[in-house]
């Protein structure tokens, strides 16, 4: 009895302590998606790599998105880096400058039939430094307006897609319809920031679309842009909508668009997969234009190879495989591509079962014209320095211009 118990404890220990030791020909690939459909597709691509590399398997490892960059840092700093991984746009410069990303330019350019020039230059901007290539974007996803068509119809309003077709979809109109929708639906709101997280983890996602629509930016050439007149005007409008009109879900409240509590929200195409279970009629439309014209905002993610990895050349070959024309077309069902040939194809326009072709065309246009979210080598510090000042901004009695000046004062030394 005693021996049995000792044995059990010992084997429990052994099972638990077994580390994930890699085989010689296994590539470890970190992703932040645990979605079954995503993983199935990724595993399919890995399977097709066997045609040229029969002994190579790829193990996709999910790290929860909220902590992804942090955990990746621990793995790299801890001497246990994956071979490849997804990387978000805001983390790219930090990792690039730290020298932990491999230059995969030579590998991908040498790959047979790769056609490097087919990748949109605008999309590659963040991942290239001269001749060096640090990543290939697999998702170049513009921010779009999601709207609850039923709520617009009930309020007797033109929906954003119709307004956009008429050329009337701008920031003023946006404020106006948000207001009317709020009045028509007591207890609900006209607009919700991206994922309802606009005051915390998605600050940049909340602020950038209007600021860019007004012709401003977060920063440019080492200079803070939040206190420039364009940004101040844009944020003032948002602030009014939250606290005067009360048409945007305010801080500390839950007005989830996907459960029908807000008429509009901003999000990326990947979220369309949540719509069927939402149970109302819906559509997607471009972001409202502003005094600065139309200026789509893009969130981006790329595949990178880690320089410390033991099989980095093999990993680079896999990147070339994964981002060739065929596989990019496959991935386009979930992730908007950066390859011009795929973007322009009919197959892409019809790739998403949930979204009609005319709306997909808007998406394609946004990818072509869009600008990636701001990023910086010191992104973590900048975001942390911004956070307390942004907290001060989102109060009813806040002075928007002063708050934005405080944001700039806090981040300027870091830029």
């Amino acid at each position, binding site marked *: 009895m005693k021996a049995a118990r000792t044995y059990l404890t010992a084997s429990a220990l052994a099972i638990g302590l077994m580390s994930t030791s890699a085989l010689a020909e296994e590539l470890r690939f970190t992703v932040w998606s645990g979605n079954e459909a995503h993983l199935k597709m990724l595993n399919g691509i890995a399977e097709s790599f066997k045609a040229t590399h029969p002994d190579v398997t790829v193990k996709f490892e*999910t790290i929860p998105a*909220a902590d*992804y960059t942090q955990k990746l840092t621990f793995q790299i700093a801890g001497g246990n880096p994956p071979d490849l991984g997804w990387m978000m746009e805001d983390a790219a410069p930090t990792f690039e400058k730290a020298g932990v990303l491999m230059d995969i330019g030579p590998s991908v350019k040498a790959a047979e039939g790769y056609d490097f020039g087919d990748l949109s230059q605008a999309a590659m901007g963040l991942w290239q430094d001269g001749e060096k290539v640090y990543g290939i974007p697999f998702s170049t996803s513009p921010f779009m307006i999601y709207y609850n068509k039923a709520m617009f119809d009930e309020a007797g309003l033109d929906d954003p897609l119709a307004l956009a077709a008429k050329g009337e979809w701008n920031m003023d109109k946006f404020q106006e319809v948000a207001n009317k929708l709020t009045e028509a639906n007591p207890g609900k709101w006209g607009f919700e920031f991206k994922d309802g997280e606009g005051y915390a983890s998605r600050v940049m996602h909340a602020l950038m679309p209007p600021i860019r629509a007004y012709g401003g930016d977060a920063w440019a050439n080492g200079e803070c842009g939040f206190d420039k007149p364009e940004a101040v005007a844009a944020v003032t409008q948002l602030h009014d909508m939250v606290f005067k009109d009360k048409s945007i879900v305010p801080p500390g409240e839950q007005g989830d668009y996907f459960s029908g509590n807000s008429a509009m929200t901003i999000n990326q195409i990947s979220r369309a997969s949540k719509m069927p279970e939402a149970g109302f009629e819906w559509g997607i439309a471009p972001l409202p234009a502003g005094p600065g014209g139309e200026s789509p905002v893009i969130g981006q993610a790329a595949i990178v190879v880690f320089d410390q990895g033991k099989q980095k050349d093999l990993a680079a070959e896999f990147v070339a495989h994964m981002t060739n024309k065929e596989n990019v077309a496959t991935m386009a069902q979930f992730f908007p591509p950066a390859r011009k040939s795929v973007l322009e194809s009919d197959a892409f326009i019809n790739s998403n079962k949930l979204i009609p072709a005319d709306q997909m065309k808007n998406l394609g246009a946004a990818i072509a014209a869009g600008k990636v979210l701001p990023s910086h080598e010191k992104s973590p510090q900048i975001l942390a320095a911004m956070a307390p000042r942004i907290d001060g901004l989102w109060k009813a009695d806040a002075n928007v211009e002063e708050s934005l000046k405080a944001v700039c004062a806090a981040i300027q030394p870091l830029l």
Partner: protein
Amino acid sequence: MTQRQIRIIYRTCWTLALLIVAIPFVFPFLWMVSAGFKSVTEIFGAPSLIPRVWRFQNFVEVFTYQPFARQYFNSIYIALAVTAATLVISSLAGYALARMRFAGAGLLMLFLVSALMVPEEVTIIPNFFLIKWMGLMDTHWPLILLPTFGPHGVMATFLMRQYFLALPKELEEAGRMDGLSRLGIWWRIALPMSRPALAAVAIITFLFSWNLFLEPLIFLSSLEMFTLPLALSNFTDTYGLPLWNLQLAATTLAVVPILIVYLIAQRQIIESFALSGVKG
């Protein structure tokens, strides 16, 4: 009013006051369990401890979103391993400090006492590099080694020492007469007589490991290796958004079993903590 009536009124008032004070101690648990059965919309809707729609699905989805069963197992076996290691090591050292005379004992005690004062945040960065150097990143070894040998282990050592000091000497001498070695005395005589202290160390150590957060946060990066507190703080979907109802269902699953054990053995558990504090 009679003396007796005054007494009763006095008692009632006290009890009522205590009941009111007890609300913030009890309500979070009740709310947690109830929210674990709710949909996200209902969690943020009108507060009611009885869910309108019982969403048992939450407790199933917890296991599909993360390898939650595996994480649960990790927490249990790590806590058991830490407890076993701490019991052996601290009772050995505690015995020597209480029962044996050797040069340097005083200095050693002083050294060890000072460790009790030092927050683990102070040494976490060098330990990060140490564990990296040992090649133990993303394994469970640091979660076993650091608590066993850190300030908590020292605390356990002192607790054991305190208990051994109070044991009657005669029994040990009898053991010696029977030809037992020091190790034999420790194992055959001292330990069996120290069940209360061993139980206290075991209970406190198990809970200490079970609730550990900073170390898992820093040393673990694969989902299958996570422990419960880390998994709980990490219930986010593919886009990094919190899955409120799943998080609360998972929290319920993590907290309730411990709570049940506590309710059954509350006297023993509370006494263990009392013992740990008294030794200073």
